[in-house]
């Protein structure tokens, strides 16, 4: 079953074509990586998937719900994490989690918060204001917020940006365990190619709002005759062509 179905999606801002006629699907339980340089259309695509932005044309179905007509039914089963959107800094961690537990109508709220605190090692942070946490602690709290409703689809915008390698690795490991345990579908936008290689079953390469290539990480490495996705990324960003498939 496809968890995300995007069909001929386009977003135009007056003279600028931010996303141009892209289509893709993500099977339930898979992780799709969305790669591209700055201005490639990743954020615009994610914003449309989240219902923050209305497409100029095309359609999005998430968990069987048409985002144009029935986005709230899908949003209740989705969540989103980004280091670029903060949680209210004066509220304590537990207060922030309670706010989102209410917004997502989470049953047995306090139990769920304790569960997340156990899993993400947040107990010592629960009563501290969110604004006083370190970058790594904020990321763990943001992750707890994004998992509060046990989402079936999770959109991650550079989830490990600004984290040290140890914390980044812990976050990736936690996400992988969550996906394995729940069958959650991930859509991951990242500039960390090692992260994409590790986590993603499929990758979309975006450039100037267009999908310029797609495939599994192994397929892309093979197609571009490279050892790492970073080199593939640079090939695409700088306009070098893939090796013809023999």
């Amino acid at each position, binding site marked *: 079953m496809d968890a995300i179905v995007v069909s001929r999606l386009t977003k135009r*801002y007056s003279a600028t074509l931010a996303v141009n006629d892209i289509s893709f699907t993500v099977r339930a339980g898979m992780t799709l990586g969305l790669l591209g340089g700055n201005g490639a259309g990743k*954020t*615009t695509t994610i*914003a449309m998937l*989240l*219902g*923050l*932005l*209305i497409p100029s044309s095309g359609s999005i179905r998430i968990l069987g719900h048409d985002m144009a007509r029935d986005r*709230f039914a899908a*949003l*209740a089963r*989705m*969540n*989103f994490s*980004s280091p670029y*959107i*903060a*949680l*209210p*800094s*004066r*509220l*304590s961690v537990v*207060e922030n989690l*309670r*706010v*989102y*537990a*209410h*917004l*997502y*109508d989470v*049953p047995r709220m306090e139990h769920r918060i304790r569960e997340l605190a156990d899993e993400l090692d947040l107990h010592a942070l629960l009563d501290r*204001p969110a604004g006083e946490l370190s970058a790594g602690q904020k990321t763990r709290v943001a992750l707890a*917020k994004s998992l509060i409703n046990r989402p079936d689809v999770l959109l991650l915008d550079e989830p490990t940006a600004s984290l040290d390698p140890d914390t980044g690795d812990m976050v990736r490991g936690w996400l992988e365990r969550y996906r394995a345990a729940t069958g959650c579908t991930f859509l991951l936008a990242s500039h960390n190619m090692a992260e994409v290689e590790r986590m993603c079953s499929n990758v979309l390469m975006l450039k100037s709002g267009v999908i310029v290539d797609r495939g599994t990480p192994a397929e892309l490495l093979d197609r571009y005759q490279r050892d790492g996705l970073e080199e593939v990324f640079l090939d695409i960003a700088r306009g070098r062509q893939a090796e013809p498939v023999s």
Partner: protein
Amino acid sequence: MRTPPALRRIWGMVYRHLALFRRSWPRILELAYWPTFQMLIWGFTASFFANRAGTGGAVAIGAATFGILLSGVLLWEVALRTQMGMAVSFLEEIWSRNLGHVFVSPLRPWELVAALIGVSMIRMLCGMAPAVLLAWVLYAFDVFAPGPVIVLFVINLIVMGWSVSLGVVSLILRHGAGAEALAWTILFGLTPFSAVFYPVAVLPVYLQPIALALPSSHVFEGMRTAIGQGDHTEGLIAWGQLAWAGGLNVVWLAAACLLFVHEFSAARKSGALLNIGE
């Protein structure tokens, strides 16, 4: 029995603001500061003029003037605090860069508005209670003296505050945080036309239609009728003015709701929700 999800989402947003107040005493102080400050200045000013009124019939006129001035200050603060309370609560989401999380949750736009209304009521009550109490302690002034009709005046001013605030929120959705100054100024700018301290008839003829289009001017005309003019006419209820205020509020609120729906949809088309804090 489980709470309906819509009510829970609304409560979630109200809880977010209550938690904020619990952790920020300057915010609580700010709620009561301006209503109390205004009441003190106008209270002493009104006392001064009432004491100069002399003896005989002038005393009654002085007392009525005192009542008109203090009632005007306190009731207008109800509208101002409601409007600012709602708009500032929305701005809090922008200042904390939290709006992205809120708008990708299942919270419906109308639920957000309901939560903002709830928070604005709490803010208004917290702000007005000390001012009303102090007016009673310092000047033996009872704002509720005109009787139950005062509730109708207050309700009309609250609803007008919501309408103006929804308009402000709509403009913030369109123009971003650059429009935030409107949260503090727009209703304050309507004070001269709201006939808070004087009848509409005092205004130049060409400004009177503007005043008469405001629910507040009818509320204050009605309030002055209830207080009386020092000629033993107090206690009368100007039902006509109340009807005008109520009718205009329906029109204003409907227009504000339509504007909000339009601007929210426009913001989702233009991408304004992605960078509303800039």
